[in-house]
């Protein structure tokens, strides 16, 4: 018969298996650095494991994990600002390289080219966003989280989330050459 600890470990392993890729994807989109995203993902699950007994399920596991990931990412940027010499060791890819990834689907080469160009522009707009706007934008349009979930994950009110989203979208529209 399994003990309570074994059951908790099994449950945590299930959570890792279910959400690891999503956390990695969010961190990869935020940092555009594969190695850093990998490290932060590991740190995120390590931290989650340490505090797993304290997780009461008030929010969903993914919201809770996202919150940890966002905080880790914030800490990382804060540390990098202090340790300025580490800037030289960044492996982040530019918007050009990030926009290379596009599923071929059934579209024509011309459409693919156009889509790639537009994705590049979105990346360029994302570059110009503040840290908070970028986080909210990625959670909404990459992770498809709803406003309330984003609010819980970021610790912001729904109104603030909407305001950040609106500004971020304005920036994307501007970059795409549409109306603001």
């Amino acid at each position, binding site marked *: 018969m399994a003990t309570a600890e074994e059951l908790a470990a099994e449950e945590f392993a299930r959570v890792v298996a279910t959400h690891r890729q999503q956390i*990695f994807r969010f961190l990869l989109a935020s940092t555009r650095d594969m190695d850093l995203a990998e490290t932060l993902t590991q740190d995120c699950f390590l931290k989650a494991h340490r505090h797993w007994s304290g997780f009461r399920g008030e929010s969903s596991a993914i919201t809770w994990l996202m919150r940890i990931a966002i905080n880790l990412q914030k800490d990382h940027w804060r540390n990098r600002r202090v340790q300025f010499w580490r800037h030289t060791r960044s492996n982040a890819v530019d918007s050009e390289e*990030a926009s290379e*990834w596009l*599923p071929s689907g059934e579209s024509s080469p011309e459409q693919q080219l156009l889509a790639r160009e537009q994705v590049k522009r*979105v990346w360029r707009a994302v570059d110009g966003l503040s840290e908070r706007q970028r986080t909210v934008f990625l959670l909404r349009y990459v992770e498809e989280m709803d406003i309330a979930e984003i609010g819980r994950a970021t610790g912001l009110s729904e109104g603030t989330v909407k305001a950040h989203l609106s500004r971020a979208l304005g920036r994307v529209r501007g970059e795409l050459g549409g109306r603001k």
Partner: protein
Amino acid sequence: MRFEHKPGNNARESEERTARESAQSVDDLALDRVLTDFRSSVHAWSEAAHNRPRPIAAASRRAVWRKAAAWSLGSMLVIGASGGSVVEYRHRQEAARIAAAREAQQQRALAEERERDAEKELAKVDSDVAREVPNAMEPLAQLMTEDESQ
């Protein structure tokens, strides 16, 4: 002041609004499509990155080499530092031993000199006493010798 709402004006406003709304909805549709492409792009990139083969062996070999180099360099530094301090310690000990031996030799030489001086002094005293005392006792000594011969 009151605005008069003419039927013609209303129709034009309505048309403009419809045109604006349709332009916006087209715009929104285009934006939605771009954002969907963006999402697909990030998902595809993340999936490829997540499933990429990780050069664990090479990394660990590099890490082993780096660790070995760091250890050997560290060991060399520790050995160098401790060897230097041992040599320095021995050198100081040797210098102290030599200084102590020299000091002892000097002390010995001084003591010998003092001894020699004392012996010389005693010899001088002896010779002085020998020169003075026998003269005073000589007659008695001569008598003693004469008695013995008789």
